[in-house]
């Protein structure tokens, strides 16, 4: 008890160095916990990119690849799914709903997705949230377009603005004969939806109707004429499927994967997402490793501070010895000081983190679509916090052991 009082008073008497040391550890602890929160938040956000969809169907390739191009709009499909195959799947008795996805064109670097208005009802993210309109409505006219939040923000689009879709993902050929009008803009979701321009499936067909192979045909068809034509697509890129009951998912998946007319692939989005995350997981570990090193650096800083204080405290230690303290007691005093510093630092670090989270959460969500839940530390985080205190004590053993031997060698008076 007396040791605790002494340690406390001794620390208070060196308030400036001690508080700087504590602050350094507190910051490192806050950083570590912040990285943990961001990491779990990012992982949860990522896993919640798409929910409510039971299967994603595309041409046969890899599961991760299908997920990348159909959900994340990264890369391209190697093949399409014929409209006939899509119809066969959509008409299966297990299928409650299906939303076709047609990709391939772009607008100023953003992907254009041809789909049905049902997409906005069926696409769910972050545990079942629906996409909602910040402005306007879903497309109803053939040449209506809906823009995601990032598209609207980056390009400064308003309702009723005219936009032109480019052919392909990176080309200079524009479908400028058939411009679109923006009918709606979506709220920020933090998913790839934000970076997508949505048009109807028929519109995709319409802008390509006078194209053959890779280029425009000689006799073009005007935007007005195309409205009179049959615009059923010949193929789609992928489709989102919802089944009547979850029990039917695997049966339907098998049926699609064994579909004889065309090589198809059906994946469960959750499984593919976790496969994809395991690829990204390397960066995750790197982030954790860096923040662990920051914590270690701060703790070594504390050890250095205790070490540098030893010399000027030799008199103090000799005095304690003279009035009857055992060398062991002096060692314990230094270790108690370190434990008190680490404990304060951990508490302060947690305070910093939670005030930071509380203050920045809304902004992080708006800017990155990353929703960080403010939860009490997880068992893993408690373990880490305990570990920091323990490491602080262990690190202080180095100067404490030195103090032990110094106090033995110095005897009653410090020799000069």
């Amino acid at each position, binding site marked *: 008890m*007396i040791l605790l*009082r*002494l340690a406390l*008073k*001794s620390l*208070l*008497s060196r308030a400036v160095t001690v508080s700087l040391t504590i602050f350094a550890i507190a910051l490192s602890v806050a950083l570590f916990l912040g990285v943990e929160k961001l990491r779990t938040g990012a992982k949860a956000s990522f896993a919640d990119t798409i929910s409510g969809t039971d299967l994603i169907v595309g041409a046969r390739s890899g599961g991760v690849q299908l997920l990348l191009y159909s959900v994340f709009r990264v890369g391209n499909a190697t093949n399409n799914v014929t409209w006939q195959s899509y119809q066969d799947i959509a008409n299966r008795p297990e299928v409650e709903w299906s939303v076709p996805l047609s990709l391939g064109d772009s607008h100023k670097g953003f992907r254009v997705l041809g789909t049905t208005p049902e997409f906005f009802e069926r696409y769910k993210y972050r545990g079942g949230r629906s996409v909602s309109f910040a402005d306007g409505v879903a497309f109803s006219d053939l040449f209506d377009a809906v823009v995601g939040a990032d598209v609207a923000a980056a390009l400064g689009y308003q309702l009723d603005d005219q936009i032109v879709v480019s052919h392909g993902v990176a080309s200079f050929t524009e479908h400028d004969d058939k411009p679109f009008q923006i009918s709606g803009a979506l709220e920020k979701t933090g998913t790839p939806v934000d970076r997508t321009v949505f048009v109807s499936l028929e519109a995709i067909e319409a802008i390509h109707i006078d194209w053959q192979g890779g280029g425009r045909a000689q006799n073009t068809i005007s935007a007005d004429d195309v409205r009179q034509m049959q615009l059923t697509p010949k193929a789609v890129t992928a489709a989102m499927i919802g089944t009547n009951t979850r029990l039917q998912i695997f049966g339907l998946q098998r049926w699609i994967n064994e579909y004889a007319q065309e090589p198809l692939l059906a994946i469960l989005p959750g499984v593919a997402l976790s496969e994809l995350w395991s690829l990204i997981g390397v960066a995750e570990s790197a982030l954790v490793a860096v923040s662990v090193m920051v914590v270690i650096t701060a703790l070594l800083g504390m050890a250095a501070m205790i070490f540098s204080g030893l010399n000027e405290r030799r*008199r*103090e230690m000799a*005095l*304690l*010895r*003279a*009035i*009857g*303290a*055992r*060398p*062991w*007691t002096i060692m314990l005093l230094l270790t108690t000081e370190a434990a008190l510093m680490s404990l304060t630092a951990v508490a302060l670090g947690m305070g910093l983190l939670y005030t930071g989270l509380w203050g920045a959460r809304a902004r992080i969500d708006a800017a990155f679509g990353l929703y960080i839940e403010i939860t009490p530390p997880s068992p893993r985080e408690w373990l880490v916090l305990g570990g920091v205190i323990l490491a602080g004590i262990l690190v202080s053993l180095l100067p404490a052991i030195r103090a032990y031997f110094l106090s033995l060698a110095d*005897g*009653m*008076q410090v*020799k000069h």
Partner: protein
Amino acid sequence: MKAAIDLKDVAFTWQGRTRFTLTVPHLSVASGEKLFLLGQSGSGKSTLLSLICGIIQPQRGAVVVDGVNLSTLRPSARDRLRAERIGVIFQMFNLLPYASPLENILLQLSFAPERRRRLGHAQEEALRLTAALGLEDQLVLNAQTTELSIGQQQRVAAARALIGRPKLIIADEPTSSLDANSQVAFLDLLMAQAEEVGATLLMVSHDARLARHFDRTLDLTDIATTKRHTS
């Protein structure tokens, strides 16, 4: 009556860059005696005091304090014996600067439960001692240790050495930082209190003028020999 301190055929060598050997063939201090030990700096007085306090152990011979041969004790028991039976006053840096004067006095008792038990109320006893040594209660209770003058600090250190009635007070140049008037005043107060608690007083100083206040005076060069040898 048994001796408070008894050294026989003691030799101690500091193991360091410069080896230094202190030899004390015989030194005996009677219980209750006030002994003045005259010694210049470098005469081995700190080494002698460290031996008596049991902080260092002689390579040869026996140091007996209050009837206990220190060599027969384990290190922790020697530390305990020092805490319980000895009070120490140095020339300076007697106090922990971050603890209050009162806490500095009471700190001695936290290492010496028997001394603590001998007192009814520790704080009252501390204030009684400081009052007897000429310090105001307010100063002991409320002042910062760093605010005290050197003379005041020495009195606080004396109170710490005296609290709980130790058998032996060891004072290493306790007056050397004080001016001439304060020296005598401090010595008088220290002696009166040592007498009152019935303690033996061993004081080491280079200042021969102080010797007249003591029962007996010894010159360190007469009782001990030192040898320096660079190895």
